């Protein structure tokens, strides 16, 4: 199992860098991981809105929400979502939020 070191801690990740032990997630993890997902500087309040939304949904339903649902519920458009997370919502945002990699035909 690959590992990464972020902010002085070691995390187990899959081969695409998704966190494997979901309970190990913390805010420092997201902050330290941001640059690897092409986000410049510190995470802003807008980033955290998306991350917290993803984590809430995941806790309730065990999957990541539909991208369009993210946009609608948070009142942001797809373009903005990609500006915030240049590697995309499914990859970048979910990875920072500590969700597992999406599976199935998605």
């Amino acid at each position, binding site marked *: 199992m690959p590992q990464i070191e972020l902010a002085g801690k070691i995390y187990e990740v899959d*081969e695409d860098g998704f966190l494997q032990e979901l309970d190990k997630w913390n805010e420092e993890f997201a902050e330290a991981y941001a640059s690897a997902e092409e986000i410049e500087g510190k995470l802003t309040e807008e980033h955290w809105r998306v991350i917290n939304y993803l984590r809430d949904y995941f806790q309730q339903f*065990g999957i990541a929400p*539909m991208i*369009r649902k993210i946009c609608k519920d948070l009142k942001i458009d797809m373009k903005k979502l990609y500006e915030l997370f240049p590697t995309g919502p499914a990859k970048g945002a979910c990875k920072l939020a500590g969700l597992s990699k999406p*599976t*199935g*035909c998605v």
Partner: protein
Amino acid sequence: MKSLLKPADISVPSDSLCRIEPGDLVPLPAPYDDFNSRVPAPLKADRVKNLETSLDDTVAVCIPRPQTKEEEDALVLKFLSGLKKLFEKENNWTFLQQLTLSMEHCARCQTCSSACPVFEMSGGKDIYRPIFRSEVLRRIYRKYLKPGGKWLSKVQGDIDLNWTAIARLAELSYRCSLCRRCAAVCPIGVDNGLIAHEIRKLFSQELGFAPKELHEKGTVLHLRSGSSTGMNPPAAKDSVEFIQEEMEEIAGGPVAIPWDVEGADILLIHNAGEILAWPENVGAFAILFQAAGLSWTLSSEAAGYDAVNYGLWYDDVQLARVALRHADIARRLKVKKIVLGECGHAHKALTVVADRILTGDLNIPRESALVTLEKIVTGGKLKFNPEKNNFPVTLHDPCNVVRSMGIVEPQRRILRKIAPRFREMTPHGVENYCCGGGSGFAIMSGYNFADWRNLVSSRKKFVQILNAFENEPQDVPKYVCAPCSNCKGAIRDMIHFYDAEARSGLYYGGLVELIVNALEGMPKPIIRFGEKPSWE
């Protein structure tokens, strides 16, 4: 002249049996010539140090490297035991006849090689010939399972059986997308696609080797949570409720999406990936079925809202488990028939392959959504305005639906009626080329496998799509209609990989969206090109 690789070379240890070098792949036309020197990104040595990677510098199955010679030998013996089972009636009654005929009768004419998009676009790499992996298996079968095999192999072609050969053969069974174009052109009916499938099956059922996207995160997750997306029933209902709200905006009125209606005429089962990634497909079915006045339902029972059956690609036991769940849900709902949404492998799994295990009242009629849609579009009850679809459209033929099942014309009769600028790809219908994502490739992306797919297995389809639109201006939005979730995933990835939305104006989607986009009385279009509506 390059040296030819022989089937026996598979047993000779080396870092890599085949390497794709810059310039090897068949060149792409402008404006994609900057991709012509691209090859799959190299594997990172520290991340694959414990994996078998000696086939072609990419990995799909990710087999752990045995630590000792004893471990290797034990795995080789297991392989032989699995191979034996493939040729026994009690262990492989479903595929025994086709497999045996294919094993016994190849004339080595290479007609299959010239039909294979992976072999062709790889620039003619020998290991990707459909006949190469089949010949490896054939030699092992002849030498170790046939009476007098040791002697026969001296005459008809020998092979050394060792761990290197086995590990490479497992990976090589995942360099064929099971599109079966080779089988369709073989003059004597040998099915090299089936042989690749049987190799995958042997490794999964006997040795427990399968890509984790297909097994652990595929069929196992499907049976456990209800969907290979991990979506449980409450999550499915939540997502569909959201789709319903979205569709009401588009339809300008109430859109009903019924759940668990006992005795409905139709149980519609979508690939659950549609719900999450292409919600307008699910929504368009609801709008159209409602407008047509059909009696239909979705099922909220685990697995009842996900038509996928990844077992089709690698494991008969998993295939049977999923198919029986689908049929049993329909039986208990007392529906008249199951309609399979726009998902090619689900069509073949439940309609054709599972037919042999669905006995008695489990054998509920199954229908392709393409057929259901044709009846709606040509039935005369609904009015369509084709001018709303005033953009270039081409049609991708999902291999499972078209070549394997012969459903060729319904989708075309629909398009001729509602898409005035529809044009065929060359070739098409049963001679189509695979999207490159078949047999699970579209969802396999670990390490550098997505690179291999985009550059090698999807390359032919990409060129075909570009050619279909070659006389259209670059800035005109163009719609690739692909009535299959897996194909859509592969086409989405190739458009992204080659930057083809910006460079060629390429967009993609399903068939039902085009129908609803042309439906009279809709206040808003369901198809958008990026942020831009397809009509105002």
